[in-house]
């Protein structure tokens, strides 16, 4: 009976389903079919023999990965940098969106919004060079200022500050851009709620707390879930620009390690094993986070 109605629904809305089709095909071709290539993580991939013909080697590459001296280090660094980002960087776009939303002068609002999201369009090569320049111990603006106050310099060669610099520079670059999605969510809140609150005598602060924030709660949870799913994926270009051998111990992440060791060495199977490991961990984290969120926050992706 129910099945019948589903078919009927599809038939009556066939045009909508037709529009869905190209997107689905795209995802299947570009995201699902290539997963087949992941089997070379369990093989010694050889160009002449191809994906099928290459010999199976079981978990050899995973063994090599877990035994590499650097694995422990890069795994810890990747996780820590991502968690720092989740804690320190994540709330800032929400605050910025709330602030921008409260501004009544249209011109000022637009200007601030544009200025804050512009850095997003700069590549890391540019931003990285800026950071390096600002933090140069001999001629950097920040360190010259710190020197005036008698504070010891903050440099990219200092293990204590490296992760903080990574998170801070990323925050500077991405905050404005990330705020856009929250602004969009805020604008979709029914204005009648605010009007009713004003009539009831709620202050601006109360309005934010009881109307705006709950209004964008599902967006916030959604973004957190995505972030958790990508916990093992860091911005490789950024760290490549900023790090140097002195801070490998705190700054070397999975992506940069694979880049340094895998590049040009044609270790296809090994790097696939790393990628597969990264994806599996990300997938597990995402499922757990989604489950928790459905249970406690009553929103979830599926």
């Amino acid at each position, binding site marked *: 009976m129910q099945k019948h109605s589903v078919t009927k629904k599809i038939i009556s809305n066939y045009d909508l389903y037709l529009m869905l089709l190209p997107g689905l095909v795209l995802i299947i*071709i*570009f995201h699902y*079919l*290539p997963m*087949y*290539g*992941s089997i*070379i993580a369990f093989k010694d991939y*050889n*160009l*002449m023999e*191809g*994906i*099928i*013909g290459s010999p199976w080697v079981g978990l050899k590459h995973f063994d090599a990965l877990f035994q590499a*001296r650097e694995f422990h280090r890069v795994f810890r660094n990747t996780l820590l940098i991502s968690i720092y980002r989740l804690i320190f960087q994540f709330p800032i776009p929400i605050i910025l969106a709330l602030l921008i939303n409260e501004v009544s002068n249209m011109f000022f609002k637009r200007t601030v919004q544009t200025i804050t999201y512009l850095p997003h369009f700069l590549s890391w090569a540019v931003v990285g*060079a800026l950071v*390096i320049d600002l933090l*140069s*111990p*001999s*001629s950097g603006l920040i360190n010259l200022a710190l020197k005036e106050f008698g504070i010891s310099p903050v*440099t*990219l*060669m200092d293990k204590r500050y490296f992760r903080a610099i990574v998170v801070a520079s990323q925050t500077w670059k991405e905050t404005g851009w990330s705020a856009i999605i929250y602004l969009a969510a805020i604008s979709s809140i029914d204005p009648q709620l605010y009007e009713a609150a004003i009539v009831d005598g709620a202050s601006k602060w109360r309005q934010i707390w009881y109307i705006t924030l709950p209004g964008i709660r599902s967006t916030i949870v959604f973004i957190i879930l995505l972030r958790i799913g990508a916990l093992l994926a860091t911005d490789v270009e950024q760290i490549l620009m900023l790090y*140097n*051998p*002195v801070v*490998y111990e705190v700054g070397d992440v999975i992506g940069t390690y694979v880049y*340094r*060791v895998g*590049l*040009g*060495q*044609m270790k*296809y199977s090994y*790097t*696939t094993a790393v*990628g597969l490991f990264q994806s599996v961990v990300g997938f597990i984290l995402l499922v757990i986070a989604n489950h928790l969120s459905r249970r406690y926050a009553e929103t979830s992706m599926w």
Partner: protein
Amino acid sequence: MRRVFFLIIALIFSVSSSFFFGTSVNPLLLAAEKKVTLTVVVPYNVETFLPGEDENNNEIINYLEEKSGFDLKWIILPPDQPWEKVSMMLASGDPPDIINCTDRNIFGQYLQQGVIAPIDEYLPNCPNINKLVPKEIWSAVTWKGKRYAVPIPQNQYISGTNGIFVRKDWLRELGFKKEAESKEPIPLNTYYRMLTAIKNKKKVVPFTVGSTGIITGFAGAFGIGTAYKVKGNKIVYSYVQPEAKEYLTYMNKLYKEGLLDPEFPVNKAGNIQEKLVAGRAAMAVVGWADALPIDRSFKEKNPKGELGYIAPPKGPRGWGIANHSSPLRTTLIIPAQSKNKKEAMQFLDLMTRPDIYNFVSFGIEGKHYVREKGEIKLLPEYQNRRWQIYYILVDTQEAFAVRLRDKGFKVYSDQVVPYCNLYPIDGYAPPLPEVISVAPDLNSLVTEYFIRFITGDLSLDKFDEFVSEWRAKGGEKALEALNKWYKEEYKK
């Protein structure tokens, strides 16, 4: 990029089964009168072609087609991840006929994967190749008794690139007149006095280098200018020798006293240039190719200053600057799956014929150049030639020198080349899998540890930790393999 690669592999799989068996070719179609098409893969090209021309239609390639009787198709690799594109072509079952493989590690990998065809059977018919390639470098492409590539000999101007570039006006001012002009290597102590004087009197960074642990000139003074060297009767890994420790102690002293740039680990190539031009550094390790643009912008800002190369330091174990990592400039390889191996070799032999490579390099006498007293003088028309992707196959000392002179580099390279006297022994070895597979890993290990030793981030007491890391990463096995080759093949 990696993902894209697999994706394309997967796509190829899903759409064509001919992948496994190769496309079947009807022999009748290859009748004698039909021209053979040769595809030639070359590295990225920095030149722009003239309007109406491209890599497969211009004076040079048309001339080569006419002379060889083949249809030629040049394929230019992208600047990023070029070898992934090559691997893709090889995996797709439609391989090119000739690959200009400039990367020795890639050559080794392809060889181990069985992608490359041996060329011995064709060599007797290649008189020009046999004449051009010196006997001693064939060993670098020989594996289990077979030769797998046409090795093009290294060019001394390319192989020796780095030198010590310094403010000569300051040196003279501070009383180091003799050293500024000296052709003889300068004692390490004098270097130390120079750097101290610069620090005290000029208040700038005395000596700046890139983010590396092996500092040109100074490494040579301590006998560790190259990774592998011959010591006594066998090959050793220089960086784990006692002299490496001496070197690190000395460099750490320079760093502690502020003679070495305090921020050298974060230096990028541009920083060094900027520091020299702005007068914020007095001395730096600079290659001759960078020296020209640095000197030009320096002179604009400081017409009275003078930048120039000085002789490298001479230390307890002599002196020297590492030559290029290989006696080969490039290797020309033919994929095992190519259907035109014989023709490809025929073409390569043609490319190594003097009149052909001279045409590629210089053009037509009278139109592009004239010879005056044996020296080649370029005419204005020469500037219209876009030869880079053609001479890159076969190049000669003479042609290179002419180009250097033409572009203004020769003044600098002539000051650097005489000091690049250290030849890495492993460059003559065939691509041994034990050595090649660990090389990038070992390089990054050395860079990390040496920078930390020099900056004092890690105490030199931990040198043994570095040595055991080197062993754990397969360094000793690589050394064994090299020594086996050295004893059994090289010494003979």
